[in-house]
């Protein structure tokens, strides 16, 4: 009985641990250059400034605005992932996994806020996912040449 309880708790914890580590490993993928800044500028995404303010000052802006910013950026980037320079018009498996990871971290952000556990780590993880998505979009847009259009021009015309 006790052994089963121990196995249940440890296995569940390890399942989430491996899920998180797998996502972190995918997020750690090296891009040949940083594409996210141009994508963020073209689409007025706010996660780079949010990340910067968190890293420099340690405190984010007010919570409800923060959630709204992250949600809007997430919706914009997932739309771009699916539609910008994507011939198949669908997510890849790793993107699906990261979308799931983002949603999980988003729920965890709310819980951390509720339990007053400090939400900075969760916010940084969320912005890391957004940065990865922006890098993927940027890489795709750059790989396909659209006449004389730059990545920013292409995205503005989308």
């Amino acid at each position, binding site marked *: *009985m006790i052994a089963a309880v121990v196995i249940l708790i440890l296995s569940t914890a390890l399942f989430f641990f491996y899920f998180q580590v797998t996502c972190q490993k995918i997020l750690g993928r090296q891009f040949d250059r940083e594409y996210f800044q141009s994508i963020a500028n073209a689409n007025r995404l706010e996660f780079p400034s949010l990340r910067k303010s968190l890293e420099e000052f340690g405190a984010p802006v007010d919570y409800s605005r923060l959630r709204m910013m992250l949600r809007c950026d997430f919706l914009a980037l997932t739309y771009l992932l699916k539609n910008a320079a994507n011939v198949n018009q669908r997510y890849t498996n790793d993107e699906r996994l990261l979308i799931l990871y983002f949603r999980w971290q988003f729920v965890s952000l709310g819980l951390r806020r509720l339990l007053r556990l400090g939400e900075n780590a969760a916010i940084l993880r969320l912005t890391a996912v957004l940065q990865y998505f922006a890098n993927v979009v940027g890489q795709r847009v750059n790989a396909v040449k659209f006449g004389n259009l730059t990545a920013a021009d292409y995205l503005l015309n989308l």
Partner: protein
Amino acid sequence: MDSIIIRDALQYAGILIEGCLLVYMTRSAQRRRHAGVGLYLFCLLAAGQVRALILRGYGWSSPQYSYVYWTTDFLLVVASFLLVCYFFQRVCEHQEKMWRFVRVLLGLIFVLVVGVSALSFLGNYALLSNRYIAEFNQNLYFTCLVLNTMLYFMLQHLESTDEQLGLLVCGVGIQFAGPAASMALYHLTTGESFARSLVSFTVPICTLGMLLVWAYAIVRVSESAVKVTRRRTGEPALVEVTAD
């Protein structure tokens, strides 16, 4: 009815990915490097086919199917243990001294697991039932899970740069952790219908998760490694990037 369709769809998706990965690996230049993974995938595929064959011939509730199911399950757990050993060997590739120590340790753990299982089996011989076998598999799964976690921390400790191996180990972790947790729940709830259906879903979902992570590690990570190497050696890249 719907749950049966979903479960079957998950299992067929798993078989499809297993087959595709196996074909990809046998055709790729890395087949020697991933020999252990390929062998494990072959075991998964073969066990699935044997089960399907017996199911078609004898039916769901036949003793033949039950016997084949639990035998293949046991063989798969042993194959999982050997897979973890193979990963340990890959980690200790350049450290002969450490591999000698790890080899002895893994042998001892295997003997210990076999010994404890044999004692448990002899003690419960009269009570041999699905519930007992579920507990037995749960323990074996959990041993592999613990070993895999040790392997993961060993990779971190040695500061391994093998991204592919790290992802392969994470995939195995997902495959072991999910079923071990659901089997423990099944055991705690004494086989209630909720726990039973949870087990029947968790196993194919986690196997599918592992296969997708492996596919990413074998196909995508090796591709990006080639790109980075080409860039470092000055060869032309696969995709030319222009400034925006």
